């Protein structure tokens, strides 16, 4: 339990550093660190597979692409005054509303019908059974959604005939 407190403090600290640091590259690196902390939480919940997939997909692929784009654009030169007071206010209201909704939703959760945890909870076999037997239709629909997004990205990135070739 002590370890849980330490990890949570670390997660919150690095997550707030994401929005507090001036340099966008530092923000991305703090975000990667936050993902590691969240993976640590998954391990504490006995969800090894989620931990590995979180690292592979988010820290290993998506954040690398973020870093990639930020390095290419060199955002550090034109940073501070890009946001007006209105944007900041709108952001604060939106974030606050989300927080209220999340708290309201989590207050209604009833923990009485949760199944007790055994050694196999969170293991990849159990996850596979759930994904491919109980929830196979939503799972396949999500894969179609991804496929559509992928086709769209290819479509946007495609060079049209006569366009300049770099």
């Amino acid at each position, binding site marked *: 339990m002590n370890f849980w407190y330490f990890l949570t403090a670390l997660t919150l600290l690095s997550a707030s550093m994401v929005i507090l640091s001036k340099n966008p*590259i530092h923000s991305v*690196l703090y975000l*990667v660190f936050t993902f590691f902390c969240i993976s640590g939480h998954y391990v504490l919940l006995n969800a*090894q*597979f989620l*931990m*590995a*997939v979180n*690292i*592979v997909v988010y*820290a*290993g*692929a998506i954040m*690398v*692409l973020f*870093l*990639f784009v930020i*390095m*290419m654009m060199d955002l550090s030169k034109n940073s501070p005054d890009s946001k007006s007071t209105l944007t900041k206010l709108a952001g604060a209201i939106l974030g606050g509303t989300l927080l209220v909704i999340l708290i309201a939703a989590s207050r209604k959760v009833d923990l009485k019908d949760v199944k007790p945890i055994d050694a196999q909870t969170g*293991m*990849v076999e159990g996850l596979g059974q759930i994904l491919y037997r109980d929830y196979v239709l939503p799972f396949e629909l999500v894969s179609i959604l991804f496929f559509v997004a992928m086709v769209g990205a290819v479509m946007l990135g495609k060079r049209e005939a006569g366009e300049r070739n770099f």
Partner: protein
Amino acid sequence: MEITSTLFTAKAIYVGIIFAITLGVAAYSTYFERIIAAFMQDRVGPDRAGPFGILQPLADAVKMFMKEDFIPANSNKWLFIAGPCLSMLTALMTSAVVPFGDQLDLGDGIILDLQGIDVNIGILWVFGIVSLGVYGVLIGGWASNNKYSLIGAIRAASQNISYELAMGLSIIAILMLSGSLSTKSIVETQQNGHWNILYQPLGFVIFLVCAFAECNRTPFDLPECETELIGGYHTEYSSMKLGFYLFSEYINMFISGAVMATLYFGGYDYLFNDYVAQISWLGEYAYNVSALLGLVVLIVKALIFVFIFMWVRWTLPRFRYDQLMGLGWTGLIPLAMFNVVLTGASMLFTVNDGGSNWMTVGASWAGVIIMLVVTFAYSEMKYKKKKLATA
């Protein structure tokens, strides 16, 4: 596990030994790289430091430490230092899940697994660490505040991400065969000569090519392409920081050799392991001797892969960047998907056959032959078209 227990001590000693072996192999890889290069180019190679030049790695290390440790002005100091550290860290972390051997019986009922951690998700761990390896290069290249370094780093990142996809897809076929993500069970399903290379020749070729790309070795060493980018991402680095980058490449070679041996070449399995485990004059130690022999066998297999890495480096020229991306996205990924479908189909047809594997073997090799024929026909067709166009 208590800190004072024998098992903990034994595990700590095991981890220390594997660490030492990895670093030692990496150090001597630099020497053998030069010896092999010299042999292939009909030269003498390093022969001054000690007999046959075997003290050369030591001399190189001393040189590296003695050089001026330079941090460029206007660079991001902390990230500049963090880059090589991250590269080294991720290179060393992968070996935690590689099963270097079977179990050792230490007496008193204490059984030591010759593997760092046997986790349920073994191969995903390898995959996760490999995907993190790119951060060291990317951060180092960016923090140098140099255009060439940045371009080198960005090339490295895009190359690694592109080849990770094909690598993951080629592993999926292995996972379908063994039915587990744990590296230990993947090795256990391959015991007694049922090596995955017999069932997955195509997958192995894809994995090998991807391993070359992930280690930034020739013919995929675009990130440090001298003619275009000076030194690539480590242009600004000197002294031991540069040493860490170069050293982590050799560690990656050895570890990826060990991973390939684990996935495709039976891991610590060798031909007479059952026989050795029952030699009568060894008595109760026979099983331990067999396990230790397995450890040696795995390291030898990994070293053979290191040799192949070097062989290819001094044989093949470098790809052009669009060729590299073309091979990854339009060559290897469809091929890996074809392999997954082929493996799945052959498993589906043999599911009622009482565990006979001949169908799987036949289908996979037939797949390789079909692939070769199609590739050959395609390149022939393209060549003819080109000739028509130029004529």
